[in-house]
């Protein structure tokens, strides 16, 4: 898996793959070379997850107008 492809992974997909890797190791009887490969892959995936959790681009809320198009939306502050 290329670095570029990893960055394009959604958080959900990265979490899913990380869970699967850990599941394979939990089954036991994994050869040493394969275990090391899974470990490296797992470290990369956990980095992707952590980066997404900590370095969040501010998601702007949007609201649909009468024409069905979305515009930025700011929730009204409480009076």
């Amino acid at each position: 898996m290329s670095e570029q492809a990893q960055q394009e992974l959604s958080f959900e997909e990265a979490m899913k793959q990380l869970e699967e890797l850990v599941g394979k190791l939990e089954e036991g009887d994994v050869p040493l070379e394969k275990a090391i490969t899974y470990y490296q892959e797992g470290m990369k995936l956990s980095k992707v997850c952590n980066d997404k959790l900590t370095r969040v681009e501010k998601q702007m809320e949007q609201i649909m107008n009468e024409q069905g198009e979305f515009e930025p939306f700011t929730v009204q502050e409480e009076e």
Partner: protein
Amino acid sequence: MKDRYLTVTALTKYIKRKFETDQHLREVWLRAEISNFKQHSRGHMYLTLKDQTSRVSAVMFSGNNKHLKFTPENGMNVLVKGEISVYEPVGQYQLYIRQMEPDGVGALYLAYEELKKKLSGEGLFEEARKKPIPKYPNHIAIITSPTGAAIRDIITTIKRRYPLVKLSVLPVSVQGPHAAPSVVKAIQHANELDGIDVIITGRGGGSIEELWAFNEESVARSIANSEVPIISAVGHETDYTISDFVADLRAPTPTGAAEMAVPSREEVQQHVQSLKRYLHRVVHTEINQSRQRLQAMQRSYAFRYPAKLMQQKEQDLDRLMEHLQRNVNMSLERKQEKVGNLIQRLSQQHPERQIELSKVNVQQLTTRNQRAMKQELGSQQQAFGQLLNKLNLLNPLEIMQRGYAIPFTSDGSVVKTVQDVQPGDSVQVRLKDGVLDAEVRGIAEEDYNE
């Protein structure tokens, strides 16, 4: 004459006492329209209850009105329960209200129960129909009023818990005659958009009339038909609308819906860290086990004493060679034994025996043949004798000895009938001692049978 005149206070108290002893006025149920509604800063409500021809003043103290599930307003039709009494300072009778609810609630409750029974019977509330809510959504659609507390609570809570997710608001009316159609349209629209992972729909608390859009059959069916999972968040903890029963997940409040829709970022981070620590531990364990196996081998007897290992191998080799020699000998003996057996079996097949048997056979056959020949010869001779006797009886020469003659045609065949010859033909006539050469001069046919 002085004692016959009453004070205003005395008169008012008398009237009040009369009212308070009248059982009909102790428990009064009214259906009326609200007007002149005022709410005092301390919470008490003052209003006029009226119909087409009459009106009565009313008060509902804060102790009774603080649990109201709706806000009374002028023009609203209501059902009230209370008692009639007199307010002495102004000598005015008024209704002291204990309970108030909007008129028409009963009909709505009935419609609610009937629709609930109908849709439940169709299986729309079945647990098996519920779609799972995605664990880490990327994009959430929020279908609610763009103003009010619900949208604020939902967005604020989601942003605090899980800022990764994208939020799109599909604004709708949540109250009044246009509410249900706009909610239905928004749900359909959210299903047409790309990438919506989950929908939150709902509104804050209110009376049954105010929540009624979410009890409409059209809204319930659009929720059931949605391919995107829907979290329903209508009203407060104790409110249950039809939408709540149909939705994939029911949240008690809009804030609760937001908490159900997204995970907590801190919890997810902790989970990722625990998976990371697990990976570390697994690989370290694997490496350590491999290292220990290697070290155990390095410490093993063979590695530390190669000379002894060589000697052991020499001894092993000697033992193996001894085994080999013994096995070869045994194999050879077995083969010789086999050859002996084969020779013995071959001897039994020696042609000498065959020849002896054949001689006996030939002798027997010769004897049988000779006997058969003798028998056959006897039979033949007997048959010949019989035939010879017959021949003698039929011998024409014997007959010719008595004087008979036999005519022959020129080609040698016997003339047996006059039709065998023509006038002029030559014929040979044989007699017992010679042949006559004759010629047919004429034919005279006769029938000796007649």
